[in-house]
């Protein structure tokens, strides 16, 4: 009875038989039409399998990576939301004990501290004259520093000059607070808070 080496046919087809077995199988194939037929069928099947097309996934399957800007953007928007919320709260606190300032009316601070109000007015003057004073001090300013007994106004100016930059920033912040209505701070806080929440959700979705 002839032995048909069926199990070796696929390995022969793929060139994975050891040399000796390969030679023996080739010798057998020359004399066995049945195995030659099997080999032709296996070759055809392997060819059909090789022709199967790739399938496309419905979505990207790559590991998701957070965009580099996302984390700092979320922190920045959160910080902005918190800052605007604080400004809104501060505006409310300022508005409660005093009547809301109207255009042309003196600033609330002026009622309590005339010297400070003078300083504010003076700071305004200085702002208008800004660059000029920085380059060459006006005679008025020189006189203030040189005078033996400064007037209240001059005292305010001197105090402002001594506190220098920090005072100017505080003044500017104070004026900004007065000029911007409270609801605008609230609006800014809500907007930046919304952005922060949106970015947070995006990060969670990408990490899921």
């Amino acid at each position, binding site marked *: 009875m002839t032995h048909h080496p069926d*199990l070796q046919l696929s*390995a022969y087809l793929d060139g994975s038989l050891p040399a000796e077995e390969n030679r023996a199988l080739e010798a057998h194939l020359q004399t066995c039409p049945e195995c030659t037929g*099997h080999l032709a*069928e296996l070759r055809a099947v*392997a060819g059909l*399998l*090789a*022709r199967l097309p790739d399938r496309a996934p419905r979505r990207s399957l790559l590991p998701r990576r957070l965009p580099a800007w996302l984390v700092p953007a979320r922190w920045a928007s959160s910080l902005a939301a918190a800052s605007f919320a604080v400004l809104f709260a501060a505006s409310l606190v300022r508005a409660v004990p005093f009547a809301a300032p109207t255009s042309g009316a003196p600033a609330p601070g002026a009622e309590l501290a005339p010297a400070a109000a003078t300083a504010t007015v003076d700071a305004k003057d200085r702002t208008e004259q800004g660059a000029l004073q920085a380059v060459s001090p006006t005679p008025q300013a020189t006189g203030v520093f040189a005078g033996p007994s400064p007037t209240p106004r001059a005292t305010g100016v001197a105090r402002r000059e001594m506190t220098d930059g920090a005072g100017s920033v505080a003044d500017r912040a104070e004026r900004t607070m007065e000029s911007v209505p409270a609801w605008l701070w609230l609006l800014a806080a809500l907007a930046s808070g919304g952005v922060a929440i949106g970015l947070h959700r995006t990060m969670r979705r990408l990490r899921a």
Partner: protein
Amino acid sequence: MAAFEPLARLYERGLYSHACRLLGDESQAEDAVQDALLLAYRGRAMFRGGSFKSWVFRILTNRCLDLLRDAKRHATVPLDPPSDEEGEELEAQWADRSPDVETVVAGNALLAAVETALTLVPAEQRAAVLLRDIQGFDYEEIARITNTEIGTVKSRIHRGRLVVRNYLVQKGWRAGNPPGERGVGEGG
């Protein structure tokens, strides 16, 4: 990630097709590929050169086979209709290779029949056949990917191809007759 992403993108479709044919379910295949790529990305520091394709297919194939084993453990109906023993019976049907119905299945219909035939191949044989005939791995690579001996790989590939052949023959296919058919190593 810079080197990983282009490689992962290059093999994404092949991996998905492999998982689809192994698992027989698109959603499961997507999840399996995503898991495999994530595992590969996290373990990229442990990748010591060699073939990235072989490495990532190894992760995916093992993942899919694990899923199939889990499903089989919990299923009431066997997922692999013909077992290895049944494969031997199919092998014994060599003599019966002249079908009664002379239906020539051509073009896409023939490839669709091949896809159907693949679903009848037991999972481990199917993995070996897919890795060999579709992904083009050699026997040694397949043995490494599937953690088996080369002898086992030879046997699985042969038996898997026989199951496909027998199904096609039942559907009226005869080697050499269908249009567009070509043998291994004959181009493309």
